[in-house]
């Protein structure tokens, strides 16, 4: 798992260390070179300061060891190349060197030498390289140490700032973590940095959607429980009439009613379960291609017996092999509900047709019947859960068309209720054009 903290720390601390070390090294080198230039200037100045003197050769007392360490050596030669001045007697001093600056070696030391010809004399000033280097190193070190010391300080600051910067994220995580599963109100963190706003916004909108889904489910459960009361109330009354029956024939009639009541209650529960399975928000778009024609054949076969019992002519009208992407089981439920509705509402000896085809390239399946139809002002309401058409005399769950719409929505399909020419209803489900 990637870590913002680690990325920030690596991304900041590595440059800080590398940059710090490079800066210290560069300072060291630059300071040393600068010291070299300065020492050369000194050599030159000393040489020039000697040009007007007259010298007498005279013996010079030996120098102490400390003096030997640091000393410049000044040598002056006259026109004839006779050494007329030697500032001190080193064991070894560089001989006459070319004019200007040069590096010379004697067997026991390396020298930096400045040599100049002035008024027939050669003035030469030499300094041991060792001394120069030591002084330059001291100088350079003193210049670069503060930079080196700054590195850990900067690192510590980076560490703290990164930690502070990420604190709102940690706080947000804690706030989300502490939530109860039913607490769906918006997150409103205090002092929220602007960078977190999109995340919090998205989280809040997710929470809102979750809340809406939960509310839908809760209302569905409440509605369902409420709607179960009706079939249960009927069952209770029917059972009581069985108890009261005075003779066998009235008992048989009451029992038949009770059985119908149980069938109705069972159907309501089954429809509720079907609907509950369709409700989940997850849109299972796409899916595998479903052949509407074979689906229609399967559904018609399923209802053939029931239709025959009622003397209804159920069959497939127009047929064509049409493939639509979708969930075959769900589409089966959709078509079965439409056919079931039609068979229930059509009077005996009615006609129910299932048509499958394409209209201008748009796939559709339609169920038409010559029943009483649905009045225009009720056509919107019939899709509401638990809505029943008044005076139909048909005992239904009021859920069939809700289920149909739920499934159609999932497939992006549209449902239209139309008048059938010659009376009756056509329910047409049109699938979206393939893109």
């Amino acid at each position, binding site marked *: 798992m990637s870590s913002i903290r680690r990325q920030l720390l690596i991304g900041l601390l590595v440059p800080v260390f590398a940059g710090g070390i490079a800066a210290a090294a560069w300072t060291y080198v630059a300071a040393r070179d600068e010291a070299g230039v300065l020492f050369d200037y000194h050599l030159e100045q000393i040489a020039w300061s000697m040009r007007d003197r007259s010298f007498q050769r005279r013996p010079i007392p030996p120098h102490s060891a400390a003096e030997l360490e640091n000393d410049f050596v000044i040598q002056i030669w006259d026109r004839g190349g006779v050494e007329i001045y030697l500032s001190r007697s080193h064991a070894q001093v560089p001989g006459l060197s070319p004019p200007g600056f040069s590096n010379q070696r004697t067997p026991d030391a390396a020298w930096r030498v400045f040599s100049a010809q002035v008024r027939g004399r050669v003035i030469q000033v030499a300094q041991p390289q060792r001394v120069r280097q030591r002084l330059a190193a001291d100088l350079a070190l003193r210049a670069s140490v503060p930079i080196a010391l700054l590195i850990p300080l900067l690192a510590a600051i980076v560490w703290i700032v990164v930690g502070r910067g990420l604190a709102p994220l940690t706080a947000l995580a804690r706030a989300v973590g502490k939530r109860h599963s039913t607490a769906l109100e918006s997150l409103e963190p205090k002092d929220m940095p602007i960078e977190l706003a999109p995340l919090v916004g998205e989280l809040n909108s997710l929470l809102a959607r979750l809340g809406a889904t939960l509310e839908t489910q809760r209302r569905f459960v409440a509605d369902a429980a409420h709607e179960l009361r009706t079939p249960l109330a009927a069952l209770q009354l029917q059972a009581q009439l069985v108890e009261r029956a005075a003779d066998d024939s009235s008992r048989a009639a009451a029992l038949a009613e009770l059985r119908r009541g149980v069938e109705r209650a069972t159907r309501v529960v089954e429809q509720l379960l079907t609907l509950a399975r369709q409700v989940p928000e997850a849109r299972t778009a796409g899916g595998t291609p479903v052949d509407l024609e074979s689906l229609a054949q399967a559904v018609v076969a399923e209802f053939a017996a029931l239709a025959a019992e009622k003397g209804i002519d159920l069959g497939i009208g127009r047929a064509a092999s049409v493939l639509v992407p979708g969930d075959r089981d769900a589409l089966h439920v959709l078509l079965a509900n439409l056919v079931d509705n039609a068979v229930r509402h059509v009077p005996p000896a009615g006609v129910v047709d299932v048509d499958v085809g394409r209209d201008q390239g748009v796939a559709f399946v339609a169920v038409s019947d010559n029943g009483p139809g649905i009045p225009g002002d009720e056509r919107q309401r019939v899709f509401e859960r638990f809505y029943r058409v008044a*005076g139909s005399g048909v005992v239904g769950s009021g859920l069939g068309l809700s289920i149909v719409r739920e499934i159609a929505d999932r497939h992006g399909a549209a449902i239209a209720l139309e008048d059938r020419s010659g009376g009756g209803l056509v329910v047409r489900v049109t699938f979206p054009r393939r893109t």
Partner: protein
Amino acid sequence: MRILLVEDDPMIGASVREGLRQDGFAVDWVQDGVAADTALAAETYDLVLLDLGLPRLSGSTLLERLRARKSDIPVIILTARDTVDDRIAGLDSGADDYVVKPFDLDELAARIRAVARRRAGRAAPRICYRDVELDPAGHSASLCGDPVSLAPREFALLMALLERPGSVLSRAQLEERLYGWGEEVESNTIEVYVHGLRRKLGTDLIRNVRGVGYMVPKA
């Protein structure tokens, strides 16, 4: 007692009508609010059993209209809406009682009797008139303490007369209270029942007001 049952569910409606008929009530059943409104305007009922979730015209609207017309007919709400708020709203909008589905037929009948009793200005469950005592719950009658067997419609007719001693009920009014829609009313039936009651309880109990109807004199 003639009751208008307003219930859109076919199974519940059929069962309640059947059960209440067995209890000796005359029941007319309509399945939507508009039909109920029409029936209430056209006919006289002693009580309305009202479902709230009705197609075309909701039960609560129907009740409001009824009370706005100054009708004081007793109304018992039959509904699946069971929250306290629903009950309060139902009772406050003019209902006399509130029964939540699922309910028991016997309880419903008892509540109908209780509402009818209060409406008649009585508190005692039994109706006493001279030596005659009627028990509406048990559908039994007694004369001087001895049980008398009455046919359900004889009982209903006697109840109707004893509820308001001194007032005259016409034959048509009595028929209305004895028969629901679709129940065959034979000619002379009222006379047959009156005859039966006189035979069992004494000839001076029910007076014939010639050309008008029947009454029991004020005690």
